[in-house]
């Protein structure tokens, strides 16, 4: 199943919305860089049990991560990439 990686704030562009439109059951979503602001977005429902967030990027931005999102480090990111195929970037 696909690993979707989003690096844009949902308040700035369409990357997250476009990603969720192409999200298939069993896929995983990883929020990195400004993508972590999605954790603060009250309008957008993130896939439960399948959404990950890079801890360092969230902490750096002061974004608190809800319980429904799993906070991960870079090593776990690499593992996610090996567990999923393909990997799709939703950058810009």
């Amino acid at each position: 199943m696909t690993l979707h990686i989003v690096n844009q704030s949902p308040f700035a562009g369409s990357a997250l919305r476009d990603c969720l439109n192409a999200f298939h059951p069993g896929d995983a979503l990883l929020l990195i860089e400004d993508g972590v602001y999605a954790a603060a977005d009250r309008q957008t429902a993130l896939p439960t049990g399948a959404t990950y967030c890079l801890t360092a990027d969230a902490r750096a931005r002061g974004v608190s991560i809800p319980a429904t999102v799993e906070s991960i480090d870079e090593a776990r990111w690499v593992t996610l990439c090996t567990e999923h195929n393909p990997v799709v970037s939703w950058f810009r």
Partner: protein
Amino acid sequence: MPRKSILAICRHAPYGNTLAREGLEAVLACAAMDQIPEVLLINDGVFLLLDQDAQQIGEKNLRRNLTALPMFGVETLHLCERSLQERGIDPAQLALPGAELKILKQPGEFISGFDQVLSF
């Protein structure tokens, strides 16, 4: 080693930024290297199919680049049905010489079947 399947996702409209052009150039580059990718037009990428008069803004017509794809072996364009509906585009009005247009109800399922995905 078996050849890997490649999908190019084009989700940006032409002219506003360079991504739409870069995407089509990457598709042509893949095809020229004998790695013919599948192409998915989704979100604003479906606007690539509209008839265009890019001379009006001093640009080269990107739809013309699309029409070159069949000559390079890309004979099917996949379109996201929901993206077309959201933008008020009637698929019956769309055509590309030499190419088959396939409308997808489940783009996510389609994407998950590929080995490599290029995003533009």
